[in-house]
């Protein structure tokens, strides 16, 4: 049964990774028209890279992890920034326009990010469903004590 608790950690890692992905995607959508950033220049699109990782139950690592091995969870390996050429739009009246009247806009395609966001949301739900199933199994084990 202790293996079921580490299964929950695996699903929790999936939930937190998908949440981070959604956060980055929402950031892209919100900044689709941002022409000024702290680093100067327009906002640059960001993307997460997932990689699988060993997830040990916090409990079993405390106990010297002699009880069981962890499962394969997931984590965000890095957040990559798209450093491609910005989208130049001709807006002479804009305060950030260059001498030719072009403004550098972030190269964000809202449709792409929205579709990705839906994927993140569905994957999050799948992990929540897994947690629900694991919880149910643990509850059934507990019911044996009655």
């Amino acid at each position: 049964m202790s293996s079921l608790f580490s299964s929950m950690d695996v699903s929790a890692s999936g939930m937190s990774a998908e949440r981070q992905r959604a956060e980055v995607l929402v950031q892209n959508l919100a900044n689709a028209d941002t022409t000024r950033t702290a680093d100067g220049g327009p906002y640059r699109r960001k993307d997460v890279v997932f990689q699988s990782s060993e997830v040990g139950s916090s409990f079993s690592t405390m106990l010297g992890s002699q009880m069981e091995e962890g499962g394969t969870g997931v984590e965000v390996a890095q957040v990559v920034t798209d450093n491609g050429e910005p989208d130049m739009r001709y807006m002479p009246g804009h305060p950030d326009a260059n001498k030719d009247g072009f403004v550098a806009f972030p190269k964000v395609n809202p449709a792409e990010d929205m579709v990705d966001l839906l994927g993140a949301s569905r994957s999050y739900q799948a992990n929540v469903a897994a947690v629900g199933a694991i919880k149910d199994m643990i509850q059934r084990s507990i019911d044996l004590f009655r």
Partner: protein
Amino acid sequence: MLDGIGGDIENYMTLLSAREKVVASNIANADTPGYKTEDVDFSSVLDEADNAAPPRVTQPSGLRVKNDGNNVDLDREARLLAENALRFSVASNLLRSQLQDIKTALQDGSQS
């Protein structure tokens, strides 16, 4: 008395727990590039007399590999999740009725 069939049910439940973890890993890694679906080899564990041996993890074949090298099929995992829950429910109910039988015997056959 419980050592016979009760022990077998216990091993079966342990096996199901191990499989649940594998399914949870597959779902968590549904978007990880290059991740390959894993599964517990049920038949090998049930065939072996030594049930205490750790279940063998295999990589099922015949799954469609996506462009990023990932071959997790969420529908398959959802099915396994439901199947596992049902199997576990059967096992826990069986074990419970075993325990109930012993309880009844201890109480001179009178229903509690």
